[in-house]
C-alpha cells in the first residue's frame, strides 16, 4: 500500500484567509489600538522562537556533557544551574531534570496532559509531541512508539517514560555514539537531534570522511 504523503498534497489553497487567521488578526489590531501590545515586540518574539530558542541550545548542553565529565555530573545533579552555565533558562524551563541514556536504560519524555516541553533547550514542541497518538501511547506502549520512530530497542534495555508537568520539564541526555572520540564539542553538538533529546531517537555517529 503506497500513498503519496507529500506534505504539499494536503495544502489548502484558500482564496480568503481562514476564520482563525482573521480572528487572530482582529485580536492583534484590537490590542494594538488599546495600547496593550507593540507590534515590533511581537515580531521579536516570533523571531526568537523561530531562530534562537530551539534544539540547537539543547544540543550544546548535551555536547558539553559528553566532552566534560564534571559538567555532566553538574547537569545530572542540578540541571537548572548547569543549563544556565551555557546561558539558557527561563519560561517553560524553570525546573529541569536531565535523564541519562545508557546501554541499559532508555528514557522517553511525554506530556500526557497537553504539551509541556522544555522550551529554553528544545524550543516549541513539534505537532506529533502534542498529538493524541503520541501522548496516549507513550505511557502504555513506549516500545511500540519508539518502533514507529524507527528505533527498535533490545529486550534487555529498560525503558523509562517521564511524564512532564506544568513545572517539571525533562531533557534526555543521549548516549554518545562510538567513534566520536576525536570530535570537538561543536562537532558533537551538530550530531545531536531534537528527537534524541526527547528520547524517540538515538544519536548516530557521522559517516566516515565527514568527521575530524
Amino acid at each position, binding site marked *: 500500500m503506497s500513498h503519496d504523503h507529500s*506534505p504539499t498534497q*494536503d495544502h*489548502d489553497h484558500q482564496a480568503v484567509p*481562514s*476564520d*482563525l*487567521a482573521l*480572528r*487572530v*488578526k482582529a*485580536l*492583534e489590531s484590537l*490590542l494594538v489600538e488599546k495600547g*496593550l*501590545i*507593540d507590534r515590533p*515586540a*511581537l*515580531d521579536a*518574539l*516570533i523571531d526568537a*522562537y*523561530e531562530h534562537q530558542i*530551539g534544539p540547537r541550545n539543547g544540543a550544546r548542553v548535551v555536547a558539553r556533557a559528553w566532552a566534560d565529565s564534571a559538567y555532566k555530573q553538574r547537569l545530572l545533579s542540578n540541571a537548572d544551574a548547569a543549563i544556565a552555565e551555557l546561558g539558557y533558562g527561563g519560561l517553560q524551563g524553570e525546573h529541569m531534570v536531565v535523564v541519562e541514556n545508557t546501554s541499559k536504560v532508555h528514557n522517553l519524555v*511525554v506530556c*500526557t*496532559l*497537553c504539551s509541556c516541553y522544555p522550551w529554553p533547550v528544545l*524550543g*516549541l514542541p*513539534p*505537532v*506529533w509531541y*502534542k*498529538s*493524541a*497518538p*503520541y*501522548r*496516549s*501511547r*507513550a*505511557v*502504555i506502549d513506549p516500545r511500540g*512508539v519508539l518502533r*514507529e*520512530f524507527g528505533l527498535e530497542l533490545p529486550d534487555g534495555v529498560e525503558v523509562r517514560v517521564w*511524564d512532564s508537568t*506544568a513545572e517539571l520539564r525533562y531533557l534526555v541526555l543521549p548516549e554518545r555514539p562510538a567513534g566520536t572520540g576525536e570530535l570537538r564539542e561543536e562537532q558533537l553538538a551538530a550530531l545531536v537531534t531534537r528527537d534524541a533529546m526527547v528520547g524517540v531517537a538515538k544519536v548516530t555517529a557521522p559517516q566516515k570522511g565527514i568527521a575530524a
Partner: protein
Amino acid sequence: MNGVHDMGGMQGMGPIQAEANEPVFHEPWEGRMFALRRAMGAWGKWNIDVTRHEGSSCRPLNICESAITKGSSRRSSAGPDRP
C-alpha cells in the same frame, strides 16, 4: 477529575504522524497568536491556573479533534469553540 485532555493510556488514537523538517509555526497566524499571548502575559492579568482552567473548559470534542488530526492547527475547525 478526568477529561479528554488526560490522554495517557487511551487506545485507538491511530499512528503517530511526525512531519519531517517541521516549521516552528505552520502558518503566520500561529506565530502571531503565540506572540500575542506571550506579550499579553506580561501584563499579569492571568496566571497558569487561569490558563489551565480555560483550556480544560474548551469543548471536549474540539480538544480531541485538534489533538488527533495532524496539522489540525492549520484548519479553522480546530479553533475556538463553536456550536
